[in-house]
């Protein structure tokens, strides 16, 4: 088990390096003079020179990359133009808010998705099963920001039951926080819910008519026990993988959702960065979110092996 973890860690090192190379390349993609974009068009020639020096913009790509990596390792992600503060500061300050939303969303998506998928798998081909297929189809065909706007329209503006933007002060209490989180969480969770439900249905269907389930049935074990203790545990590993992948998508989906709901997280910061062409912030944000994604996938891989005795004991 331990050896497996070490091996996986070693495997992702080249990927991490590759990710840094990819984000580094974003600066290279900027047409024209990068200092225009990095400092804004009104910057003085002095500051441009200084920037060129510190980033090595006159030197070879490799040197530039090494400078970039060097900065990364010391936690320097550059200076954000729109926020006028270091990128790392902007990101870290907001990371918690995004994590809160993402955590709530994955929770909702997992619980609802697994429940719905299992429910449908127990009666394949029936109304409820086909209903689920249609719901999944629509959730997969919906832009999340549109869903968010529709939810705002219905629940916020017409029914007036839930707040539609922003994140409340910690002083306002848990209930207010949850109220503010409700709509953005649902919006963010929608796509993942569809993916998780679909995978759960598929995995449970594969397992529910297995021979060993039949053995349990033949001994008089109830359907409920069979689903809970025989079917689901064997279906979970596959579902877990999907959940892991979805977690990554949640962090990227947060850009859209936070924009729609004005939720002060990394996503909203990215949107503001895009509007003002704040490349360092965009770069830093992408790098951070990608690294988090890689880490999450690693954890999911480890959990998958842990829950699978056959693989583990081999």
């Amino acid at each position, binding site marked *: 088990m331990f050896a497996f973890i070490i091996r996986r860690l070693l495997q992702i090192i080249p990927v991490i390096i590759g990710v840094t190379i990819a984000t580094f390349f974003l600066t290279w993609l900027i047409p024209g003079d990068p200092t225009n974009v990095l400092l804004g068009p009104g910057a003085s020639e002095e500051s441009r020179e200084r920037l060129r020096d510190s980033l090595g913009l006159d030197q070879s790509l490799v040197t530039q990359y090494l400078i970039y990596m060097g900065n990364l390792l010391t936690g320097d992600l550059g200076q954000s133009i729109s926020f006028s503060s270091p990128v790392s500061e902007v990101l870290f300050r907001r990371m918690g808010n995004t994590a809160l939303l993402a955590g709530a969303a994955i929770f909702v998506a997992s619980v609802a998705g697994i429940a719905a998928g299992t429910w449908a798998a127990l009666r394949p081909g029936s109304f409820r099963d086909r209903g689920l297929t249609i719901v999944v189809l629509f959730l997969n065909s919906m832009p999340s920001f549109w869903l968010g706007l529709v939810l705002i329209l219905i629940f916020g503006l017409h029914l007036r039951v839930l707040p539609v933007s922003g994140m409340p002060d910690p002083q306002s209490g848990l209930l207010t926080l949850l109220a503010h989180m409700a709509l953005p969480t649902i919006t963010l969770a929608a796509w993942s819910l569809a993916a998780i439900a679909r995978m759960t249905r598929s995995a449970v269907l594969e397992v529910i008519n297995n021979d*060993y*389930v039949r*053995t*349990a049935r033949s*001994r*008089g074990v109830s359907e409920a026990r069979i689903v809970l203790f025989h079917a689901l*545990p064997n279906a979970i590993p596959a579902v877990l993988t999907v959940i892991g992948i979805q977690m990554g998508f949640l962090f990227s989906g947060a850009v859209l959702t936070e924009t729609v709901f004005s939720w002060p997280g990394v996503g909203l910061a990215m949107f503001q960065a895009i509007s003002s062409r704040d490349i360092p912030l965009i770069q830093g944000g992408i790098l951070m979110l990608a690294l988090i994604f890689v880490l999450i996938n690693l954890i999911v891989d480890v959990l998958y092996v842990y829950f699978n005795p*056959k693989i583990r004991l081999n």
Partner: protein
Amino acid sequence: MTGKTQMTHPAQPVEPILSVDGLSVSYGSARQPLNVVKDVSFDVAPGQVLGIVGESGSGKSQTVLAVLQLLAEGGRISGGQVRFEGAELQSLSQRRMRKVRGQGIALISQDALSSLNPSMKIGRQMAEPLIAYDGLSASAARKRCTELLDLVGIPAPAHRLESYPHELSGGMRQRVLIAMAISRNPRVLIADEPTTALDVTIQAQIINLIDDLRKELGMALVLITHDLGVVAGIADRISVMYAGRIVETATTDQIFAASRHPYTRALLSSIPKPDQPRGERLKPIPGLPVDPREDVRGCAFNPRCTHALASCTESLPAMIAAEDDGQHLFRCPVDPFRLAEAEGPRARLQGNGGMS
């Protein structure tokens, strides 16, 4: 006509513990049904051993799965009755059926590797219904499971409770399945091809184990196999199935010495015998088994039968009783002497030809 009308014969006064009457099983839509079991009837007396013999695809597994209402998705009982201890089973709700399964009738499945939950320890799988439904405490269940594993001949039983299925050999897994089946003291034990996936050397052990347990616990046994040799030693009565129907039912002696259906005879003569002269070729049954999707008019064995009469293609032969024993039932109009003649002198000298 089924064998039901014969049941009032004084030779069998005991009420059967399991009684199947005209059972039919179908898959697929009502418009285009796939009939895998057609009008099957048999009885099992308490403590008796019934062997059901047939090729793969003959419907024998489907029959017993239907008895326990364990048919796969899309399958249903399309006709007939199943009676256990007098009560009808085929129309019971799943909830009521659960009371019968395991406690009244138990099933030993065919492939022990796929019949055990790969991610659950043996002990936990075995103990599950004992704890959940029979009211045993965890430690009492543990003790019972250890006893059961010991009973089926597994060494170091207490240790084995902590193993996963893939850590055991094929023979041991089958023993575990047997232990699980008898764990709730059923009155009827159904063993579906319990030795097919095992080495020949272990097959006899397993069959004997099942028979010993049956005698010790006073259970009736339904043993399903494609191998006549397997049932020869322990069955009281044998039913032979072909293409979803029972073609012959009789006592073991009658089957081996005086069977009345060409298919049974062909099965018997295809068994390699140790005293066979060298150079004499084996006698397989010509042709291929019937495709269950085809609904044939007349006798399904007809294309492969060497004695076929014209009437055999026209209509399905009715189930009739032998002249000398009302309990010997078969679906064939062919004269018994013609059957024996065709096989030559060896057939007429046939005694207990089966292997044990």
